[in-house]
């Protein structure tokens, strides 16, 4: 093989490898994107069927109930316009509290209950997860309902 052909082969193989790697990456990327929806969007059936997504808002006051196994919990996520009941089995994060912001990841069950596989609360006491704050702000902007008790305080 002449050096020139060799170089072509080099470059060709490199390009093929690059193409394969990009395809792999983009494919994985596409199938692992998790979209975020607000309770209003869930109520309007804008969410994908059979695919996981994230939902965010505020945990409604007084909505938290616990089953006797001590692990399965039910609560309601609201953006003060619409409410979505959520079921989660596991240990809730330290910062989970009624009246505070929350983001949960999971799927929508057939009965309209959100079955959370993960409840996220990587924030401190006076901080609202940006997604949750956003959901509340959107619902408020839509003029559905306003609340004077709500303090959205992203740091």
């Amino acid at each position, binding site marked *: 093989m002449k050096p020139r052909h060799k170089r072509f082969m080099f470059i060709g193989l490199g390009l093929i490898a690059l193409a394969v790697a990009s395809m792999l990456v983009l494919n994985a990327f596409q199938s692992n994107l998790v979209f975020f929806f607000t309770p209003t969007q869930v109520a309007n059936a804008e969410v994908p069927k059979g695919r996981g997504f994230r939902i965010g808002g505020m945990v409604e006051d007084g909505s938290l109930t616990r089953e006797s196994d001590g*692990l399965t919990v039910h609560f309601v996520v609201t953006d003060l316009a619409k409410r979505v009941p959520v079921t989660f089995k596991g240990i809730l994060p330290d910062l989970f509290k009624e009246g505070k912001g929350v983001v949960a990841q999971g799927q929508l069950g057939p009965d309209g209950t959100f079955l959370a596989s993960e409840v996220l609360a990587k924030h401190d006491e006076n901080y609202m997860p940006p997604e949750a704050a956003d959901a509340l702000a959107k619902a408020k902007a839509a003029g559905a309902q306003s609340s004077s008790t709500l303090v959205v305080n992203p740091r």
Partner: protein
Amino acid sequence: MIPEIGHYALILALCVSVVLGSLPIYGAAVGNSMLMSVAKPAARGQFLLILLAFCCLGYAFADKDFSVLYVAATSNSQLPLHYRLAAIWGAHEGSLLLWVFILSIWMVAVSFFSTHLPEAMRARILGVMGLVSMGFILFMLTVSNPFERLIPAALDGRDLNPLLQDPGMVIHPPMLYMGYVGFSVAFAFAIAALLGGTLDATWARWSRPWTTVAWCFLTVGVAMGSGWAYYELGWGGWWFWDPVENASFMPWLAGTALIHSLAVTDKRGGFKAWSVLLAIFAFSLSLLGTFLVRSGVLTSVHAFATDPKRGLFILVFLAVVIGGSLILYAWRAPRVGLGGGFSMVSREGMLMANNVLLVAALGSVLLGTLYPLFLDALDLGKISVGPPYFDTVFVPLMTPAIFLMGIGPLAQWKKASLPELATRLRWAFGVSLVTALALPLAMGQWTPLISLGLMMAIWIVTTSAVGLRERLAHADGSSLLGRLAAVPRAYWGMLLAHCGVALFIIGVTMVKGFEVEQDLRMNVGETATIGGYTFQFDGTQQYKGPNYIAARGTFRVSQDGREVTVMYPEKRRYNVQNQTMTEAAISPGLLRDLYVSLGEPLDDGAWSVRLYHKPFIDWIWGGCLVMAVGGVLAISDRRYRLAWRRKEVDVPAATQMARQTVS
């Protein structure tokens, strides 16, 4: 008064950095050695000024001076002294000061260990580092000053985030920053070489030890961050593919690619332009990481909206550093030349493949980290990229890289023969294949991923053994010990670092394949068994810490009826921020960790509890430590020490005499 002294020292340091960033570089361009000789004293003077500023901030924290805004925001009078001092780097402003402080440490180190460099090179290197520090100090003085006063003074501080009140927090950021900022030396070497147009093998030999030291610090820093997440976040994960973690992982990938590419530049003179580009990337990603983590942009891109000046400064700074160095690169790199040719099957070829794979991995992490931020910034919706993405991408990208890791060190430079390599490695391959298939079966669970992981780990170890044996066969010396001593330390370092990767892979594989997790409700006196260990819950007691109150649970752990250990997980409530924290109890071991954390209190003293049995998890961090030790061993190699010593002899007698008369 003290904070003002610190502030003033910072202003003076800015002035010095302006001098350092201009005169020596200009001097090097026109060949004026008077101007070039400014670099050394300026770098050292700047170090003293920033040290002073750093001590002033430390004093303000120790003294509980809540009239300083930053102190009031990140500490509290109840906070113990060591955490008050660690709070210096507990938030944005102070961590920038730490960054600049560490940069000045590196500059002083360069000024001391660069006697063997040509004067113009040294002047340019220190000048470039001076420019970087100028940018950072300017940023602090204009928009994020840690010495800003709070008038009237706060009665007490808002306290340090309880998550950060941990011994790991005291050393993790300085370690990580030593790594981040250490890449600025490699960057400065690269820019200096571009400016001077002297990119050759000696350049690579000079910048190699600096890059490796920075890489070692970064390796330990990233590992410590992962360890901190494991025991402090309280839920047993060790890596979440969280943007904050990715921000530290990306420079690591670039740095790993860089040390391999520099090896080719050093030994064969090839990959020169590529090494320079990687040095620029590694440092740019370090800058990006610093800003991503500390600017608040990750919690929300709109955090910038609350302080647009800060965001603007960061963007402009990044654009100047990255854009400027890339333009310089585009302008000067074509002159560099390509170096010797090589065949596809050769050590160069395999190191190139290693670099391509590492950079592809880097690109995929960058995509997964920045894409959601872009979408959010452009108001195109909120998304997140889950850990499954990174897992799916990393396994296929790293598998060939690790396979090559076994072959590369055995292949010849320039041109190697595949059949010959196959013969040399057939035993290593056979042993790793058979063990990888048989071992999981013996442990009672077989999945393709467990076998793949074990195979890669054993492959690294066996090929290292083959390589070492061949080295010993060719080494001079009659006794085995003599021959062992004849093998250069750089080679030992490489073997050790590669075996560190093997340990790491074993840890990851075993944890992913065999860990047992159980969330359950436990009444007082109840027992639960996982992984052969029986946990008995003896209830919780109230307990008072220095700045928190805690419920402390007692778990008696037994194996085969014999008590092994007693574990005390806690649920803490920190007084000032009224924040709850889970403190897991961990019983570490060489072959397994036991991990208990308290969930929530239920009725009758019962708690929801999470129990883990994590086999081999400590190997993950042990592997990282071994990698770093390998790096240290490599830079202690004779050839680097010789470079310094030779220069001392070379210094002309006249200058030495002149020095003596001056002193």
